[in-house]
């Protein structure tokens, strides 16, 4: 925590006027969105250096706690931590961090005990050179045809011992199923044997970021409440939230009004105020576009569950288990698990939901605190208005099925840092590009999440209704038609702003049993390449299992010895 009295003196001297001619970015809201954005901008623009042309100020309310969930990340977080100059060893020690190597989706297809598939972080073997997925598909269709028609194809017999898609084409499923870490104690910080991301304690991460960003990156921290906005217009006066007029929505923000520090002026304001969306939503009244017609989840029950013993194994992947009216997330941190049931209130009462959660967690749920969080699925119509841009929950929210919340924060922070308008004249152009970029990204995420729902065979109404054509975006329908004729490939995802690679779609599609049954047959040369890729994967699987330590063992060693930067 910063020394408020010193900060107040320094800040009030600087806040009124931008006498030094720096571009001042004012971030409203702490939490992971606020601190990641502050850190990204301050690192990029070297705000520790007094000659920097940029200044970052973050105003955080002392009374409003962060949302406290949101524990899954993407491999992008490794680059983000590096960009902020954070040590992976310290991050792991301070934030209860564990390694995440993908997601295991259990019971999404027919709900049976053996029904699961993996979406790992490592690409299928030979991706880009060999279309292993296509051959796997053809082989699968052929062996199904064989067993019913007693025909045979010389390419398909014995080498293709077909199991689950992810396990056949990628070694990471085996690594996860065996509880192995993605690297060894000899690997340098951020280096990997198997591509990985993190599970982290959201609250501890925020605290750690705050301390690092203020002490090492030169960000000014103000602990205060923002109670109004001063529009940039001649003779304007401060308006409270809810007092904005149509006129003020077309005016820049000159300053935000705080309770104890008066007006804080700025050139760019970043709204990290969470669901409240104080600046973008309440002041600028940018409408919220719900996507509850596509994704039905509207409630979450979250709980923190201790391990049964200090050396209980820790899952190295997110476990997402389908339930009657939604699904349960299960994330293993070093010292406890984070578990939550996200469901649709249209298909389940709160009592029924609690019973489902209890079934999963066990009777010990009765001793634990369960939080109920309403989920409004969707996003703002646009994200950057005038000189204000929203990052994090203030921009929108979707169920955490693919841990997209933090990666959207990272992508937003990166774009703002890299394209920071140094001059009001260019801001509107950058705002327009930001809005287009992120409108595209939100849409792609919605499509990809919906994909997880539409291939189910589960009979419950929640699931049946999810398969209704009317609830499926056209963009997704188009892709599903295309994918009868070919496997998802980079040809389908050509925008610079793609979020998920083609391989991710393959993992979900074929993990759930989709059949690309109109594909043309392959040549024998292609079969040979595919077979050797399959063989290579078997080798890599054996090597990985032999070389990698158990997940908990590695975490213990990192806590004790640390990872070298080299």
């Amino acid at each position, binding site marked *: 925590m910063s020394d408020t009295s010193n900060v107040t003196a320094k800040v009030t001297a600087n806040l009124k006027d931008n006498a030094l001619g720096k571009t001042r970015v004012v971030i409203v809201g702490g939490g992971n969105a606020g601190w990641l954005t502050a850190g990204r901008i301050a690192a990029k623009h070297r705000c520790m250096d007094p000659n920097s042309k940029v200044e970052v100020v973050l105003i955080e309310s002392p009374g409003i706690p962060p949302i406290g969930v949101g524990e899954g990340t993407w491999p992008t977080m490794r680059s983000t931590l590096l960009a902020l100059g954070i040590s992976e060893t310290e991050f792991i020690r301070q934030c209860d961090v564990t390694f995440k190597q993908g997601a295991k989706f259990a019971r999404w297809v027919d709900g049976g005990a053996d029904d699961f598939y993996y979406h790992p972080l490592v690409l299928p073997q030979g991706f880009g050179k060999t279309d292993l997925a296509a051959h796997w598909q053809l082989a699968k269709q052929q062996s199904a045809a064989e067993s019913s028609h007693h025909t045979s194809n010389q390419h398909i017999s014995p080498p293709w011992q077909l199991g689950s898609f992810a396990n056949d084409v990628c070694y990471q499923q085996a690594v996860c199923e065996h509880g192995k870490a993605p690297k*060894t*104690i*000899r690997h340098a910080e951020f280096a990997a044997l198997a591509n990985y991301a993190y599970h982290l304690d959201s609250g501890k991460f925020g605290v750690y970021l705050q301390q690092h960003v203020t002490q090492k990156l030169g960000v000014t921290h103000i602990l205060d409440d923002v109670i109004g906005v001063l529009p940039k217009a001649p003779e304007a006066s401060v308006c409270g939230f809810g007092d904005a007029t149509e006129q003020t929505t077309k005016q820049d923000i000159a300053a935000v009004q705080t309770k104890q520090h008066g007006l804080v002026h700025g050139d760019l304001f970043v709204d990290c105020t969470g669901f409240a969306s104080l600046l973008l939503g309440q002041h600028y009244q940018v409408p919220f576009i719900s996507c509850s017609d596509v994704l039905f989840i509207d409630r979450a029950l979250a709980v923190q569950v201790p391990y049964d013993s200090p050396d209980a194994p820790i899952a190295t992947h997110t476990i997402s288990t389908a339930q009657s009216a939604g699904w349960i997330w299960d994330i293993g941190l070093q010292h406890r698990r984070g578990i939550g049931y996200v469901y649709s209130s249209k298909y389940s009462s709160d009592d029924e939901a609690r019973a489902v959660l209890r079934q999963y967690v066990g009777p010990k749920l009765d001793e634990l605190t369960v939080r109920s969080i309403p989920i409004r699925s969707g996003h703002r119509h646009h994200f950057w208005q005038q000189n204000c841009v929203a990052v994090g929950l203030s921009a929108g929210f979707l169920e955490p099925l693919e841990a997209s919340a933090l990666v959207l924060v990272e992508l937003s922070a990166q774009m703002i840092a890299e394209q920071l308008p140094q001059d009001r004249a260019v801001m509107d152009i950058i705002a327009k590009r930001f809005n287009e970029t992120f409108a595209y990204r939100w849409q792609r995420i919605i499509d990809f999440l919906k994909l997880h729902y539409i291939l189910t065979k589960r009979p419950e109404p929640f699931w049946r209704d999810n398969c209704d054509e009317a609830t499926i975006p056209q963009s997704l329908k188009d892709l599903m038609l295309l994918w009868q004729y070919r496997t998802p490939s980079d040809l389908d995802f050509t925008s610079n702003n793609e979020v998920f690679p083609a391989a991710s779609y393959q993992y979900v599609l074929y993990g759930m049993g989709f059949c690309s049954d109109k594909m043309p047959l392959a040549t024998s040369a292609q079969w040979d390449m595919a077979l050797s890729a399959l063989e290579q994967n078997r080798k890599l699987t054996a090597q990985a299992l032999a070389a990698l330590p158990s997940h908990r063992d590695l975490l213990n*060693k990192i806590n*004790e010895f640390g990872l*070298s930067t*080299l």
Partner: protein
Amino acid sequence: MTSLVALNPAAHRLHYVLPDVAVNHSARQQLIPVVPGEFSFVATQLPLVLTKHEHTGEFGIAALCGFAPGENVLVGGDTATPSWQGLYVPLQLQRQPFFLGHDEQGGASICIDPQNPAVGVLGAGGVVSGIASGVVSGVAHGQNAALPAGAERLFLDDGSATGYLAQAAELMKEIVAGEAQRRDLIALLLQLKLVQPLALDVTFANGQSVRLQGLYSVDAQALAQLPEADVLTLHRSGFLPAVYAMVQSMSQVYHLIHLKNQLLGQAG
């Protein structure tokens, strides 16, 4: 698994060690840990590299002796009777078969592995037992009638340590001190950012190739570009000769390749 036993005159009065066997038996390691005091001797024949400890990830410094785990191209002879052919015997080999054991009170004692082929016991009535292969001598005359040629007893008949054991104890002390120095050297190298990963892609005379990974060396370029204050620090630390020994030793990779080529030629 070796089981170590602390030496004491009562239990080990009749024990002896064959030092040459001890050295040769332990020699077949790809990486032999070395201490700064012996760098200048080792560097005349072998590359000095940094590696990370398997269980802790901590850096150590070792002489590179081969191109695969368990391979040592300086060991000649055959599988049954290996023999170290380097000019200098690293302390890590010289001190075999002795180990330093630590008891619960934190005290240290010299231990031995009774199963080590270099360790033997004088039997009652002069029958020799536990002899390593190839070193049996006939019954000799005199007080040590049963002692094989080249063998060294650990304790005299009165229970006091022999000169050999006393020497071994001194060697252990030297190694302990050397390991502490090695840690300091490594810390300094890391602090001054003088360590770089080493990628060694080697092709032998018969076309076989191998890639060595997990090795690190001193970054000679970074060393040459050190700021003045760091140069002074390095000099004052007393480690400058050791650092240059490491840099110069890298050309010994060619020596290793040459030895390997010879071995491959013979295998032909």
